[in-house]
């Protein structure tokens, strides 16, 4: 059972045009900036938005095709959805919310309730079975929404940022459970997320959305190795420089030169890993040929390492240890020199 979807949707000024194919048992992660059309695609797949162009089919059964005026109603599609906004039924208890899908498909009440209860156990909300959605916390509600969709286990499951509201611990655990669940199962899963860790943990392949189109596609490793958009660079937390390769290295649109080692010329991407950037308060005398001077505009701490944003001719994010931060006494606004060895710069054609 394979999902083939060429989805073309017009919403006011926004246009979505993407094509995806997902194999049985595969999990496709969809990442992309806000408003890039991720949710819209899921809604189109689920049949909640009619597509204006293209076709959606599972193997040979067509679900939506404007040209042939075919449209299969949402309830007739073997597709379950975890909504970004949960959309729980306010008039039903958490238990009945989870049991709803089973009841709707004719499972006897007691049986449905029993299975729903199992699910609540799994997501650690057994003692909130009676609670109305309004009486649940954000994270609890999201877990109920997840359980509600998983309970009917559909051939195709669409998850829209299913972990966004979960706390670190629960998130890691749910992620683990989810993976086990997905592994056992040979259905198709499409996962929208903003967290590369989710993508890595759960997905086989990744599609990067931007402005209603797919800008990059492949395994997370491939994508992160060679980011082709600012978004991906931000995502994996590395520095991406776009320009054209010439004699004196890479020249960016605004005329900054970057010394690199490359065997080709023409438009190219350059990736500078934050770890390979060294920061110094005084102009260092080194062999390194790339020295950029700027002011610190951002300091993010991740565990024992620190990311420092440097507002130089090229904006760079460097990663240093917490120790280094303290010795250098860095504060936002300080002037600083960022040094990069040409050999540390990874370069590939645009």
């Amino acid at each position, binding site marked *: 059972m394979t999902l083939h979807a060429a989805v073309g949707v017009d919403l006011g000024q926004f246009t979505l045009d993407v094509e995806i194919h997902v194999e049985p048992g595969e999990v496709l992660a969809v990442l992309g900036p806000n408003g890039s059309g991720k949710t819209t695609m899921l809604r189109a797949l*689920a*049949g*909640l938005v009619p597509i204006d162009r293209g076709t959606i089919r599972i193997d040979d059964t067509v679900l939506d095709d404007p040209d042939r005026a075919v449209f299969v*109603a*949402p*309830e007739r*599609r073997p*597709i*379950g*959805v975890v*909504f970004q*906004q949960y*959309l*729980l*039924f*306010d*008039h039903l208890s958490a238990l009945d919310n989870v049991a*709803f*899908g089973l*009841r*709707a*498909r004719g499972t006897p009440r007691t049986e449905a309730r029993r299975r729903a209860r199992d699910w609540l156990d799994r997501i650690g909300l057994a003692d909130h079975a009676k609670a109305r*959605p*309004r*009486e*649940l*916390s*954000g994270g609890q*509600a999201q877990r109920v929404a997840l359980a*509600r*969709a998983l309970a*009917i286990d559909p051939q195709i499951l669409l998850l829209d940022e299913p972990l966004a509201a979960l706390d670190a611990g629960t998130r890691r655990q749910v992620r683990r459970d989810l993976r086990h669940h997905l592994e056992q199962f040979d259905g198709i899963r499409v996962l929208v997320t903003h967290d590369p860790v989710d993508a890595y943990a759960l997905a086989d392949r990744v599609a990067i959305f931007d402005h209603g189109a797919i800008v990059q596609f492949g395994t997370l490793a491939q994508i992160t190795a060679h980011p082709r958009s600012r978004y991906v660079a931000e995502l994996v937390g590395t520095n991406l420089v776009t320009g054209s390769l010439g004699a004196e290295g890479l020249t960016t649109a605004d005329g900054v030169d970057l010394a690199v080692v490359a065997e080709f010329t023409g438009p190219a991407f350059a990736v500078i890993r934050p770890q390979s950037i060294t920061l110094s308060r005084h102009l260092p005398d080194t062999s390194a040929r790339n020295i950029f001077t700027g002011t610190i505009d951002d300091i993010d701490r991740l565990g024992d390492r620190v990311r420092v944003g440097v507002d130089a001719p090229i904006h760079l994010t460097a990663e240093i240890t917490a120790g280094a931060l303290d010795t250098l006494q860095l504060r936002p606004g300080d002037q600083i020199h960022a040094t990069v060895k040409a050999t540390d710069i990874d370069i590939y054609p645009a």
Partner: protein
Amino acid sequence: MTDTTAPTRAAVGRNRRVGRERLPWPALVLAGCAIAFFALPFIGLLWRAPWGQAGDVLASRTVRDALWLSLRTSLASTAAAVVFGVPLAWLLARVAFPGRGFVRALATLSMVLPPVVGGVALFASFGRRGLFGQYLDEWFGLRLPFTTAGVVVAQTFVAMPFLVLTVEAALRQLDHRIEDAARTLGASRWYVFSRVTLPTIRPALIAGAVLAWARALGEFGATITFAGNFPGRTQTMPLATYLALETDPDEALMIALVLIAVSFAVLIGLRDRWLGGDRPITESPR
């Protein structure tokens, strides 16, 4: 208002909240006027009421028959109004078919008919010589006029609009995304409508049914014209009252008071609980 289930502390909290739920005073003043406006006529009625007659009236066979008939027919009409009215409301709220405005107007029109004309209109359609009634008669030997069924028809005709419009409005206020979610869970339209939509609009559904019921109970003009005024068969309370006015106005008042008392009892019975949607003890934290 589920004080019963709430722990005392929470109840305290609620009371304080309720205390704060006070409306801005201009609104309170207006609401007060409205209440007074509704209360005064009834107080007046009680004040005027010839209590001496109470005994005879309650004892009177005619009144008891009329009351029983009124209750039966008004409930039947309400049921009919719900069964046919809810789907119509659904159609009006959700399907953008040509002439939707036309149908909606049509469904409201029976309210503006002067009493007798309503009856005449029913004759013209369901009467023995009526457009449609003649076939009912020919084919099934079924005659509505001057029968209890006729009473139900007349009452339904005037009472249904309330249900239709109230429910349609509620459906329009509804957040469709919840229904979408239900559909992705494999619920058929019927299932979604009955298990998700209706429960969500319950307040409106009940309000509509109450309005329809009350209107049916008070219906006079169309009934006396179309169904006639036969004790035990088509003589509902309003008709009995009307007739009593011809002979003994005091008795008429008493009969009306009986009707009022009964309906009041029923209406009081409408717990806030059933109307639902009442503000929970404390809001959701989401």
